[in-house]
């Protein structure tokens, strides 16, 4: 359907019914200061009574308002082509800062977790950025990223730009003055998800199960603690986000169940890349990319022995968690709560 096809409908049907059919269209009217109109009238009837000077401020006349309104409805009613499923991404090596080639070809599939390790400034963010812009040997690293084993066409690269990849980093905060419920509803609306109430409910429940301390639907998102914020962001990215690839730049180690968080993302068939030095996360990944001097020096598959050490690391982590909870509860940290370590 083109915008013109909506003109007849908009001209004959009262605006109240139009807004019930296309709820987003209310935003278009609000944007040109036409909210709260008489619902029994049609848009052309309403426009009769609107001051032409006011419309002119928006560079519109009455006919143009009708046409733009229809174009708006058309743009947001378009049946979205289902995004082509991503079955893999492949990183083909480029070169490091001194020009030495990276001997690497790494394919990652949905449900896989890859961690990225290396000193500060070694080029971890650069790698995440190459993936984000689907580099085609045209970034400083000369890496190439393949989607489903082949070169993504230019159209996909630019039009899909940014939608393929969701990012989550330690520096991110909520800045909207909204409650958790309003926030989730707003995000669901922007994704145009049908039955958003159920998704919002689920997202909230999952976020709360990840967070160390519980929060309510009417908590302001700006008042959430670091762990709670991160929990909500992760649940939201997993359940409400459309991006098949998730790039994580460190996760706090306080106030959030990191293991469950990663499980949640992977369980929703996302490809997860994590820049982290947290042993619990890095060793739980299937593979880890080692970066030095701007280049990938090796890709390590997590060994069985490393997986065994995870149990011990988890034990150490839970001791720390326990001490943290004692402090949080206003208690005195008991000497007995800390196990004896072998003297070296």
């Amino acid at each position: 359907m083109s915008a013109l096809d909506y003109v007849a409908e908009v001209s004959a049907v009262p605006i109240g019914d139009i807004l019930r059919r296309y709820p987003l269209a209310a935003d278009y009217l609000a944007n040109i200061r036409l909210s709260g109109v008489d619902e029994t009238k049609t848009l052309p009837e309403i426009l009769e009574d609107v001051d032409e000077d006011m419309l002119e401020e928006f560079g519109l006349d009455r006919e143009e308002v009708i046409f733009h309104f229809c174009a708006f409805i058309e743009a947001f009613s378009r049946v979205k082509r289902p995004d082509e499923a991503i079955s893999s991404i492949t990183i083909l090596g480029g070169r490091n800062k001194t020009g030495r080639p990276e001997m690497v070809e790494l394919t990652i599939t949905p449900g896989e977790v890859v961690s990225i390790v290396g000193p500060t400034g070694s080029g971890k963010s650069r790698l995440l950025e190459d993936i984000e812009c689907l580099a085609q040997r045209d970034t400083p690293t000369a890496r190439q990223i393949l989607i489903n084993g082949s070169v993504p066409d230019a159209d996909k690269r630019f039009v899909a730009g940014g939608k393929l990849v969701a990012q989550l980093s330690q520096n991110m905060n909520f800045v909207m003055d909204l409650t958790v419920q309003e926030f989730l509803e707003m995000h669901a609306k922007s994704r145009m998800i049908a039955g958003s109430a159920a998704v919002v409910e689920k997202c909230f429940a999952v976020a709360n199960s990840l967070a160390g301390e519980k929060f309510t639907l009417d908590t302001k998102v700006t008042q959430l603690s670091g762990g709670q914020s991160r929990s909500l962001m992760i649940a939201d990215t997993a359940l409400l986000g459309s991006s098949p690839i998730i790039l994580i730049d460190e996760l706090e180690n306080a106030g959030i169940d990191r293991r469950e968080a990663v499980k949640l993302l992977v369980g929703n068939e996302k490809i997860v890349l994590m820049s982290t030095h947290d042993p619990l996360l890095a060793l739980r990944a299937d593979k880890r990319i080692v970066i030095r001097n701007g280049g990938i020096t090796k890709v390590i598959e997590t060994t069985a022995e490393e997986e065994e050490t995870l149990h011990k690391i988890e034990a150490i982590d839970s001791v720390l968690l326990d001490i943290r909870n004692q402090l949080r509860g206003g208690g005195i940290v008991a000497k007995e709560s800390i196990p004896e370590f072998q003297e070296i």
Partner: protein
Amino acid sequence: MAAPHSKTPVAMKLITVAGPPSSGKTSVILKTIAALGLPEGSVGVVKFDSLTSFDHQRYDEQQIPNQTAFAGKICPDHFFVSNVEGAVEWGMKKGLSVLITESAGLCNRCSPYVNAILSVCVIDNLSGVNTPRKIGPMLKYADIVVVTKGDIVSQAEREVFAFNIREVNASATVLFVNGITGQGAFLLARYWQDALDIRTLRDRKLRFTMPAAICSYCTGETLIGEMYQMGMVKRMEFDDV
């Protein structure tokens, strides 16, 4: 000093960048110029500001030819349109292959875009989720909307912000650029490479009318009262009490 660039250009690409104050225009321009990878001295900037600006220092540091001009008491948009042709002449004389004009949208009614000339609007994620709905022609008539400061807000807020931009301008390309690290500037540079080559702006048309104001206050009146008001005056209507 950079070696002087060829003084006989065939044509030059012009890109107009606009956006609210402190939205990150200069940082985005600097990072995108770096991503363009053109010879030093071949990309220049003309900055239109209102009272004062320190951005020329940042361009100087990067050896980017630049000119700054101040609108002073003139509406910045009117100042822009009466000087942008001169800016193009300067760029051509200077032998630039790309000229970027940078202007601050100060009144939410700014619309410094020219037909067929690549227009870029820079807004930041921190400015409030409804900002895209409020800044009018500067956003509505842009070809590319660059969103900055995305690294410090949640993914969901970035998505909602982008959605609100599409509600106002469904045909624009929305790009996220980090003005500090330059992340995203690469894609923006790819769009700049396809900008139209021109020799002059003469006889080209603005995309939208400029904010209008020809009243006694434009010419220096400072007294308050109806008797001092002449010319184009718009009055507020208040509810009856």
